């Protein structure tokens, strides 16, 4: 066998072994990844089922009757009445430019301090 043929044979053998080994490793890694993907899919499915349960539970906890009861018991809140919803212009403190109205400024014991304190508190 000539030198050239030996070289060629060696080259082909090396290449074949490289490709065979590479393919084997590749197949193995793909299998690992497929198993990982299957696990991920299974976990997603379980999570979706769990999310459905949690959503239903959340909705159950948010029933208006329960919230109203909690708001009343824990926060002393009641339904807003129409007369409680007022226009900005009815307030003595101008929220937009941060100044009080002249009516309040003229009143030394006016509501300015009270309103400011209220705003600060909130």
């Amino acid at each position, binding site marked *: 066998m000539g030198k050239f043929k030996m070289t*060629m044979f060696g*080259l*082909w053998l090396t*290449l074949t072994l*490289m*490709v065979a*080994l*590479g*393919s084997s*490793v*590749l197949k193995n*890694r793909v299998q690992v*990844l497929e198993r990982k*993907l299957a696990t*991920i*899919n*299974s976990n*997603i*499915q379980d999570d*979706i*089922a769990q999310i*459905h*349960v949690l*959503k*239903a539970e*959340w*909705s*159950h906890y*948010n*029933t*208006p*009757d329960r919230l109203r009861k909690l708001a009343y018991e824990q926060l002393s809140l009641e*339904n*807003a*009445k*129409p*007369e*409680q*919803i*007022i*226009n900005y*212009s*009815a*307030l*003595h403190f101008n929220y937009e430019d941060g100044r009080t109205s002249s009516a309040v400024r003229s009143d030394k014991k006016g*509501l300015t301090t*009270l*309103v400011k304190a*209220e705003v600060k508190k909130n």
Partner: protein
Amino acid sequence: MGFNVSFSKRNNENFYLPGQEIKISRGTISSKNYTTESDNVMTCRTRTIVTLCFFALAYLILGIRVSYVCLGKGINIDAAISEVTDKDVFRFRNPVKRADILDRNGEIIATSLPTVNLYANTKQIKNPQDVAEKLNYVFPDISYEEFEKKLSRRGAFIYLKRNLSPAQQMQVNNLGIPGLEFENCETRIYPHKNLFAHVLGKTNVDNEGISGLEKYMNERLTSSTKPLHLTVDLGIQNKIRDELIAGVKQFNAEGAAAILMNVKNGQVVSLISVPDYDPNENVKVAERPMFNFATKGIYEAGSVFKVFNTALSLESGKVKVTDRFDTSHPVYYGRLRVTDPHGSHGRLTPEDILVESSNIGSSLEISLVGKKFQRKFLQSINMDKALDEFELPEIAKPQFLSESRWGEVSMVTISYGYGISSTPLHIISAFSAVVNGGLYRQPTLLEDSKHKSKRVVSQQTSESMRALLRAVVVRGTGKRANVDGYQVIGKTGTADKLENGRYNHKKSISTFISAFPESDPKYALIVVMDDPKASKETYGYTTAGWNAVPISKNIISAVAPQLNVKADFDIEKQKSIVDAAYKAKK
């Protein structure tokens, strides 16, 4: 240009490489003919080596790349996974196939939960009695006898129990009995129980819609898991239902219904009919709680129809808001004697006719307009047909007289609300058109609905009607619904109940239809009380002004702030409220 191809004579003693025996003479190209026979072997060898080198190079590149990818760190797997855009890679099965239903704020009002059903392959069960005993221990709600009966049957698929909880499933698994299997399924849950019973309806054990929206939208709900957005509002629905239940209790009524509708687009914000039922429970429900009075209950609305009578009279141009009608004496139409139940009122304008709810005045108005225009107008506001496009299967077709039976007497009785029966849904849809500027919009429960609108009255008639209806609330039968700041407009109606084709004068259905605010109505509300009883508080009256109207006031007071309807309060009055609040704190 051409090629002269000739085949050399085959010499069997010689070895010819492929193509060697084909000689190409390019006589037409070159003046000199020549053969390549002497170079053939060399050419083939060269070509073979070039080809081999090419393949070897390709093989080398492939080998290096594969080795690099597999043995080295040629590809960052995690990065590659994160770059995956093809969703098909993630082939997970959504355990729930029926889409959720959400209210207009995105709150879940119907959802499905993945569960399992327990079934038995009785061919594999050797001792049914023993298995029945064990199962009875896990499921005390099912008797031993029932389990034994099922397990004694021969079959590969016999349901033992549906919708097991995870704990129950684990308990059955722990029994370790061969032949007991689980089937994956889903069950429909209505977290708010009765609240949306008549809107949503319910599903059967196979999770198929059998009533309400679940039935009407069954295909949509099962074909996509994308949630279905409705126009109803959880908080408002709850408030209105509470008020209706309180009203039914207070007035000892047989039932009640209410619809709150956005007059600008026909969206139904709330739809309630009581009594109702809990769709979560798989038990047989009595007929009345299953009956959706709001969309299926056809009844004669009584004086509420005077709204449409006045609107069509003004629209015809034959009646003006300044006209006066003499209502001091009963009026006769053939054998029909029209009187006013509240006594004589003298000469009334159309506004007074609505305020006093005068039957005589209404009959005089329609006499000027005529039955043809009346019939045409009522047809234009869909009083002659079922509202098929509304997304509930429980709808009813109004009882609308045929043209031949639409005589003078019918024309007159219809003018004050007798002779045509319709549903609360029909009435509120038509009323919305009268007060919203004159456009009739199909009622809908779906947020993305694109129903077309049609003009039924002019802008001017609509404006006039709003002013007339405001007078009813300010100084008429609807004054108990006058909520400060919201300029409520409306009309009451009380009609004797029709039972087995005869009017029962001891039973009535009272209605109050309203809208707010008068200047630019945004919402319309109808409240219907079925057979309310008189009490001390109502001074013996059962008319709408004593029951449906105060209920409407409570509802409007509570829901108008939630609906972001701007209250039109006197600024000075508001300032005094603020002052008082701060001074009280001081």
